[in-house]
């Protein structure tokens, strides 16, 4: 027999809030330690790198505002993920719907460009929400009526949207800026810019919209019959069916809202930050949104700090690179490490370790 007895992992019934917070802190420390190895491998001082990362993200008011700017699309794509994943509808389409939203907004802009900002911007946002939502809804319809796996349809959808945008911006495409060497549209006119919140910073109205959306998603999930049904379907689709919840409706509406939120993220980047539609409008905000949602524990309010954390990583990495020469690509690696650490922590907190001694 093993003289030390046996180590048993037992499932824990409930995790206290203190335990959960502690787990997050430990996970972040662990993530830093692992990242430090990578930074070391890039021939930089990990301490320097982290100091610059944090300075770059939060070092002064401007940095903070820029971090919030970067977190804005992540809040929205994170929320798009939360609402779908709460129903165990595994949509990976946020990246595509982000671009659909940007395209829908741009399309509305081209039609209504003459209107004053107070009318134009709401129209753009509505168009963006609806085009993103349509994209999501297609996946929802395919799932509801043909039982097409949502992961497959959304990933494939991402490619279709990506190539469609490429076409629109190509030499023969209708949106290409005349005479431009690049795949991009002509710049947006200033009357369509999202209002800036602080002078000399890029933080725009989209941030407030994102915060409002997280409140709305919270309300939907916790205070409406629809949200109740969505959660019921996510936890136990069979019981949901027996108790008469219209599952097809749930899937379709959920994907509609999810796509719409991702679409708002896209249009916010276009009219709030970049002012030009280009294929690199998103450096992967849609996919990072999935990570943000997971880190937030699929909590719509938790998405805000989670998105700010990842916004800070993106924003701070620029200064980290300038000061220490660590390549920005490392940011993606660090993001992944943070995600894996937090997910591991979430799983581990659900167990307690017990040593079993034998009576013999």
């Amino acid at each position, binding site marked *: *027999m093993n003289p030390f007895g046996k180590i048993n992992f*037992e*499932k*824990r*019934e*409930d995790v206290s809030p203190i335990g959960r917070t502690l787990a997050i802190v430990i996970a972040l420390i662990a993530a830093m330690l692992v990242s430090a190895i990578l930074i070391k491998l890039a021939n930089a001082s990990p301490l320097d790198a982290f100091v610059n990362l944090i300075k770059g993200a939060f070092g002064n008011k401007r940095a903070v505002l820029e971090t919030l700017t970067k977190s804005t699309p992540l809040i929205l794509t994170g929320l798009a993920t939360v609402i779908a994943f709460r129903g165990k509808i595994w949509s990976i389409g946020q990246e595509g719907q982000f671009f659909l939203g940007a395209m829908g907004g741009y399309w509305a802009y081209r039609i209504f460009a003459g209107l004053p900002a107070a009318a134009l911007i709401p129209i753009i946002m509505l168009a963006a929400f609806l085009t993103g939502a349509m994209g999501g809804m297609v996946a929802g319809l395919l799932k509801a009526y043909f039982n097409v796996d949502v992961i497959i349809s959304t990933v494939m959808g991402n490619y279709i949207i990506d190539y469609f945008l490429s076409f629109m911006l190509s030499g023969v495409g209708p949106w290409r800026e005349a005479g431009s060497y690049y795949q991009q549209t002509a710049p947006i006119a200033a009357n369509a810019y999202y209002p800036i919140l602080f002078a000399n910073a890029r933080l725009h109205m989209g941030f407030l919209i994102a915060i409002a959306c997280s409140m709305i998603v919270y*309300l939907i999930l916790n*205070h*409406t*019959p629809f949200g*109740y*049904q969505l*959660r*019921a379907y996510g*936890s*136990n689709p*069979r*019981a*949901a*069916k*027996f*108790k*008469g*919840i*219209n599952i097809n409706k749930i899937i379709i509406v959920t994907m509609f809202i999810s796509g719409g939120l991702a679409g708002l993220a896209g249009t916010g980047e276009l009219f709030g930050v970049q002012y030009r539609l280009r294929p690199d409008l998103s450096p992967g905000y849609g996919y990072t949104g999935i990570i943000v949602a997971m880190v937030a524990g699929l909590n719509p309010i938790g998405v805000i700090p989670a998105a700010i954390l990842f916004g800070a990583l993106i924003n701070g990495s620029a200064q980290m690179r300038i000061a220490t020469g660590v390549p920005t690509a490392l940011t993606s690696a660090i993001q992944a490490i943070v995600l894996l650490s937090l997910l591991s922590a979430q799983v581990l907190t659900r167990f307690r370790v017990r040593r*079993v001694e034998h*009576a*013999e």
Partner: protein
Amino acid sequence: MAQNNNPENKKNQQETFVIETFQLTKRFPLVLANDKVDINVRRGEIHCLLGENGAGKTTLAECLYGFYKPEEGEIHFNGECCNLSSPNDAIHLGIGMVHQHFVLVEPLSVIENIVMGTDHKGFLLDFAATEKKLESLCELYDVKINLHAKIWQLSVGEQQWVEILKALYTGVQLLILDEPTAVLTPPEADRLFSVLQRMKSEGLSIIFITHRLKEVMQVSDRVTVLQKGKKIATVNTKDVTTEELAYMMVGRKVVFSVHKDEVKRGDSILQINELVAKSDMGLEALHGINLILHQGEILSIAGVAGNGQKELFEVLVGVRKALAGDITLEDKKITNNSPRMIANKGISHIPDDRIGAGLIADFSVEENLILGLEENPPYRKGLFLDKKYIRKFADESITQFDIITPSMKQRTSYLSGGNLQKVILARELRQSLKVLIANQPSRGLDVGVIEYVHKQLLEMRRHGVGILLFSEDLDEIFTLSDRIAVMFKGKILKIYDAQEADLESIGLLMAGIVDKET
């Protein structure tokens, strides 16, 4: 009672038991499943483990089978202390077990299942040798089964024989059967008992787990009673009465029947006409069901599991399509209406699979109490759920139905089986309902809760609700029913008035034997 205590046992060194436990203790988080249990099983005896659900019978058996590892205590096999760290260890020693849930591969034949399911050496499977050995086993114990049949072609009762053969095939000295009669008709159960006697006479020892007192009296030599994880006593079966065993099992006097008022049968309320539906496998499972349910009546569907009850229940609830025929509620056709429409018309249901089909385990008790009602006005106000009203409704439900939970915010999965059922009852019965479709409403519950469920059903009956009761428990059917319909292979064979029905003819009908009575 001659010897119902343990201290003497230890001194009696002459007798070696096949299996013996000393102070066996098994804990689960929050539960002490077995608390210092001493049991012993003699060679060539049928030993019953009797107890209510949750008494720890299955856990104890799983410890003996190496599936669980006890935290404390010892298990001795043939007088030697053994350390069972997996079922494989147990099988090597000669311990076999037939679980409540079978582990068989449906598209494969009996022989193939037994070859695959047992430990075999070498690379190739020797079907011919297996077949020969199985044939001789069948002959020895007088088991009749087609070894070449595919599992899906067999009835549940026959599948159990396959599991038993599988255990025998590995050469067991001790066979553990966990509630084997739960899936059998009375004649099939009798058949099992006679084979068990045969095995016993061949020197096998059998541990027979049950919560049915009748079976204990019928089949066992000795019986060990467990209650809440503790051993109450081990007694010779012939020295005790059913009443004494019931008292040991529950810890209080049990009333074996609930009071049933005379209720005058009202008008017909639910009519089922020539209903046809398919099973999940795509085979026709209902071949033209005809039933009429009246107000204030309990109409029971008796039958062995797998004869179309599941399909009938699901069609009535609205989650399975009827292919032909129709269902009429008070002169209005409701065939193939959506589950929500059916519920809103006053048909409530209690599913047999509480956690799987009746509740959302991750939801709070409060949330589960409004499952299916979330869109209806008092629970919804405008766009939003009326949390205040819901809280009040939950509070009242918990009091009225005596649901034991630390709070209405408690996660439902932490509730005991009885309380889960009470959550469902509260939700379904507090609505204004015309028809209740109850599927195995007391299965797996403690005697006390069963009594409660029965009282609630009779209360509904008194209020004029028509109740369609699906049950595999004939005692329950006889206690509650006004009429009894026997279902076999997707048909209603006969409908009895409860006064005229007798156990024997219903038992035969359940097995599909029609022309026995004249």
